[in-house]
């Protein structure tokens, strides 16, 4: 099975004034469709950097990043955006909902950008997703009227509404208490199992990690291990 994400010997350096800060140093990684992967590592190890490269919001200094069969280095800004829109869903640490839009409108947003569905179809799709994340009753609320956990459910629904092949989540539970955080991970796992959508998320939290069927360990910008967590499912081949 062709990997949905294929990263080969990727380097990423940030320049801070005169000094170059190496964030990733020769990372290679394959992710197969349907996986539920966690990226773990200490602070500053490069988790976010890696996710940004996979999510096509940033480009590598060196090495190749292939997402859904497309080499991101060869794509224009426009094509990258289009790729994000149609194949990648994002879940953010701070939820990042548009405050002036209702829950429904926030979730509908990617569908409007995709311009694939008619208004009634969109409505059906949005309501389905809201039901799946258990927040349908709050469809007309503003994000500010919701709790953190509820907001992140909305964010999950928004990430999935456009039927992406891949969902990326950078520390989706960091702003939530541990119980709520686990609920969110359970929800993601449920959706992963139901539709086969690939999930890659980063976390510090060992309990959250344990839901993944593979954990990739980063340290100092390098992958130091790929393991199956306790009670986790089968692991994919390691590079």
């Amino acid at each position, binding site marked *: 099975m062709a990997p949905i994400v294929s990263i080969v010997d990727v380097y990423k350096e940030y320049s801070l004034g005169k000094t170059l800060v190496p964030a990733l140093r020769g990372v290679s990684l394959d992710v197969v469709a349907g996986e539920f992967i966690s990226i773990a590592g200490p602070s500053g190890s490069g988790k976010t950097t890696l996710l940004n490269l996979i999510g096509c919001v940033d480009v590598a200094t060196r090495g190749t990043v292939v997402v859904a069969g497309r080499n991101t280095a060869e794509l224009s800004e426009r094509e990258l955006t289009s790729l*994000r*829109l*149609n194949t990648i869903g*994002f879940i953010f*640490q701070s939820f*990042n909902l548009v405050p002036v839009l209702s829950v429904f*409108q926030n979730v509908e*947003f990617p569908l409007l950008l*995709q311009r694939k569905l008619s208004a009634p179809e969109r409505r059906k799709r949005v309501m389905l997703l809201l039901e799946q994340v258990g927040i349908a009753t709050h469809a007309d609320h503003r994000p500010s009227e919701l709790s953190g956990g509820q907001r992140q459910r909305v964010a999950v629904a928004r990430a999935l509404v456009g039927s992406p092949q891949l969902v990326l989540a950078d520390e989706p539970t960091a702003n939530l208490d541990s119980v709520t955080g686990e609920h969110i991970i359970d929800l993601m796992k449920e959706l992963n199992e139901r539709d086969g959508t690939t999930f890659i998320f980063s976390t510090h939290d060992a309990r959250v990690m344990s839901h993944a069927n593979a954990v990739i360990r980063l340290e100092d910008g390098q992958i130091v291990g790929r393991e199956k967590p306790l009670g986790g499912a089968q692991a994919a081949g390691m590079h």
Partner: protein
Amino acid sequence: MLRLLLQVSLRNLFRSRINLLIGAIIFFYTLLLVVGGAMLDSLLGSMSRSIVGTVSGHIQLYSVTSRDPMSIWPTMGNEPDLSPMQDYQRVEGAISKLPNVKAVVPMGINGSLITSGNTVDLTLAELRGVVREEKENGKTAELEAERQSLKEHVRQIVRVLHTDLGRATEMETTEARDPEALAAVERASSDAFWQGFDEDPYGALEFLENKVAPQLPDGDLVPLRYVGTDLDGFAKSFDRMEIVDGQAVPPGRRGMLLSKFIYEQYLKLKTARRMDLIKEAVDTGALISTDPELQRYVHQNAQQTREILLQLDPLKSEQAVRALRASLGRSDGTLPELLSAFFAVTDDNFQARYAFFYKELAPLLQLYRLRVGDVLTITAFTRSGYTKSLNIPVWGTFRFKGLEKSPLAGNISLMDIMSFRELYGYLGADTSAEIQALKQEAGAQAVDRTHAEEELFGSGRKVVAEATPGLIDDKKAFPGTAANLRRKDLQQRVFDHAEISRGVVLNAAVILKDPSKLKQTLREVRELSDREHLGIYAVSWQDASGILGQLVMLARLVLYVAAFIIFVVAMVIINNAMMMATLRRTAEVGTMRAIGAQRPFVLTMVLSETLTLGVVFGAAGALLGAGIVGWVGAKGIRATADIMYFFFSGPRLYPHLSISNVIAAMGIVLVVSVVSTLYPAFLAARVPPVRAMQTDE
């Protein structure tokens, strides 16, 4: 998608203080544009109505050979030096055929000083008339009584003069009086002179006219600007003109219509005029006790009773004394004392005295030095530089509706164009012949005071005589004009329209059917003149009205400049505010970009937000502005100074809102909001999607 943008925009409206700030700027800017625009438009509209509707018309025509450009209100008071149009009849015929031309009114503007006949001259003339009539038609009891009364009146006048001279000798000022003149007054005051009057009335009258009357300060010299025109055509074309006293000059007849403003201001008995002014001020809330100008009027009225004293013959004096004593509750006092006491009004008694003045005293007096029906002698400078006098009957007074108090509109009187031509020194061939005939018939007799007047006129036109067809060198050919023309023949001759347009015309007003097409019609007129060699210049009313027209332009320019400055300021403020707003929203924008929004989407979103801001707050501002204009428009703005009547084209300016004001204001505001947001929107579109991940805020 559009709906989403609109929703985002609308909901973002009140999200941040910055938006409120931008909204407030847009709100006030629109308000200002709407209110300012409506006010200025209304003001300009009314000003143009004043200018166009009084004399100028929409377009003025004049000869290309003129030395000065046409100016209806010349800056320094010097009438422009215009040459007559070469063939006015052809000009009128050609221009009238243009589709947008309603009427062409021939004109000529000139000014002169008129000596409002003083009481002595008038009384002596009346006395002479009675004496002559007795000679020619025999004595009657009626004429006898009239003669005695007039004699008494003249004696009264001489008495006043005598007292004046006595006072002057007491003060013994620098200039010594001519002893001969003093002797003449002494003689005219003596009983012997009056006893001998009936024996040689002509001799006595001659003595009074030549030796005594000149010592009385002459009646005022009143400046009179007049437009010589086709009076019928004028009345039809300038429909704001209305007759106040008397009647219009009958078609084809000679005559003048005096401006009511001039009539009241200069020809009314000064005391009465001041009473009117006080009355007007008091009625609008002023107090004599606090208003120094009113106090000055009261003081002048109490001091300067001479004008009244001269008018009253003994009989009337007696009546006045009786009435005044009753009114003032006094049992003694001479007429001058009583008058002084009477006119020393206060806030308490003013209204009662005003009423008493018009009820009891006015009937004894001639309120106006010139009455409708009188013949006015006008002395003007001809084009060749000589003075020329003409007697013209005054048929009535007129005013321009709404501009009654405006000195600018009120300083122009109207005259038939035939008389104008004569005064200006241009005559049609037949009139010239007519005058030649009259000249032979009547013995030429120079009028004594013409020389004095010539001195006064000295600073007037300095045009040298030119060989122009129809121009008379009146000094050689026509001495003693006034006496000649006293013959009524010329006055009563009826002329027709052909004669009006055949003769000399200096300028002409063109009235348009659709004033908004002024520019186009002006072009057509100019083309026509070139094609048909009409030899005329055509200028718009703005150009023809000199400084006033420029004022209109200036006001418009000021509004535009002000609007532009605010435009720039608003742009800078909105730009900065939008920059701040955008910087605050980079996480949100980054999220949208990460989720899959393209750059143009972000650009459109930010722009449509300010556009919405502009529409919403702009509409609110326009609405309030419309409300303000409507409110002010219903009440009207009062003209507080006389000059404002002309600008307001009436006693009040009623501003009104036109749709174009609102559209223009909204258009400008939307342009401001969009243009000032272009850069912030561009920046927003460049927010990198990674910003979504950076949750450091």
